[in-house]
């Protein structure tokens, strides 16, 4: 039983479970973000965000989410360091094998994503927690006005570029990570693998497309 957390396969299992969890979360996050372009009234977005911020279940979920990210990152670090140690001397001619291209850059796309995540958290989440965010009063209730913040941010071109670039790199991470997670779970055969790969591509397109269309629409509106 102990091997499930410590063995190479166990660590990979943890990585993949955390990864799939984050994949699911991204969908939810995207769904909420899309509210801002679907509804003209920014308060819809703010109200949902408010609900997300106050609901006890969501609060618990938030801890789980951070746990998931942490788990994913820590295991990734351990695995990556082990992988580097496993080949102390690199080849001078870089690998030319016909392989999944993006899988070779998981650690790089991960670092970019992590940096983005840090800035993102500083921008929205921590600000809100510390009470530095804009507030708006509706029917006697104070809401954090994320919507306005977002609409303001996405009028700044460098920020839009940075934001979109980050998601493209996240896409690179996802397109391999999605199907790799299923392989690690043990799901890989002639029948299902093509379906999973198609899903991975679809998912990546939806996530990257969804998250990048928001700043683009706002910027060009």
């Amino acid at each position, binding site marked *: *039983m102990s*091997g*499930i957390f410590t*063995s*190479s*396969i*166990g*660590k*990979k*299992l943890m990585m993949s479970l955390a990864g799939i969890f984050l994949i699911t979360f991204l969908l939810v996050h995207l769904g909420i973000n899309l509210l801002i372009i679907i509804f003209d009234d920014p308060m819809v977005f703010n109200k949902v965000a408010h609900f997300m911020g106050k609901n006890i279940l969501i609060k618990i979920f938030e801890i789980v989410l951070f746990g998931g990210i942490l788990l994913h990152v820590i295991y990734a670090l351990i*695995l990556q360091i*082990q*992988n580097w*140690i*496993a*080949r*102390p*001397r*690199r*080849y*001078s*001619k*870089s*690998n*030319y*094998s*016909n*392989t*999944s291209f993006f*899988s*070779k850059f*998981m650690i790089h796309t991960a670092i970019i994503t992590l940096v983005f995540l840090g800035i993102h958290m500083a921008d929205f989440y921590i600000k809100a927690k510390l009470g530095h965010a804009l507030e708006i009063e509706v029917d006697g209730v104070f809401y954090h006005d994320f919507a306005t913040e977002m609409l303001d941010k996405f009028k700044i071109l460098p920020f839009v570029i940075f934001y979109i670039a980050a998601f493209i790199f996240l896409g690179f991470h996802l397109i*391999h990570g999605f*199907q*790799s997670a299923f*392989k*690690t*779970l*043990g*799901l*890989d*055969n*002639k029948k299902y*693998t093509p379906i999973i790969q198609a899903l991975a591509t679809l998912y990546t397109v939806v996530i990257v497309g969804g998250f990048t269309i928001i700043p683009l629409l706002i910027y060009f509106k």
Partner: protein
Amino acid sequence: MNLKLKIWRQRDPNTRGKFVNYKLNDISPESSFLEMIDVLNEELITKNEEPIVFDDDCREGICGACGMYINGRPHGPDSLITVCQLHMRKFKDGDTIVIEPWRARAFPVIRDLMVDRSAFDTLIQEAGFVSVNTGSAPDANSIPVAKKYADLSMDAASCIGCGACVAACKNASAMLFVGAKVSHLTLLPQGNVEAEDRVLKMVAKMDELGFGNCTNTGACEAECPKGITLTNIARLNREYYKATV
């Protein structure tokens, strides 16, 4: 054909190695890659230099002894073959060919292109077998085996233990090798009896030997001379969970 060769030379595991450049002329495109190195070695011997050391034996792609990292690919620029089956017609006149040994912590270099792959033997010794003594077997047809599983088992069993999977993997992982052995034996009723014990022991040993972790990159599958697929790694994962959880 005339060729430029850039070959890794290393005296022993503790000495620093380096690339040495050689020129070789008039190689027949019908020659195999190892025959090309034979010609080079003949020239080196004539010049009182030490020939390039590499492992080889059957020269027909089945013993798994040969292995070199040629222009960024284990076993060179062709698929489903070992170096000894690689033919010079896969190169062009005037090509520069870079030849390196398998590189992995678990496969230390012995000399030049020869590496120590005893870690694979250690893995099989750990649990890569069916515990049956000579003489105790029932009639061969007493346990029917569905053709489908016999075939899948054979797919996995065709591993020649050359180490190309480890050499190709960016993480120097041995998951394809272990996955193939676990699949080969577990898919058969005879080997299924000790499936759980086998997978736990082999995975623990694999980790201990210093191989890297699988990232499902698929370089192993792309370079396996016997076409062993990633599905065997997935099966290894499943078997491992079954045994653990």
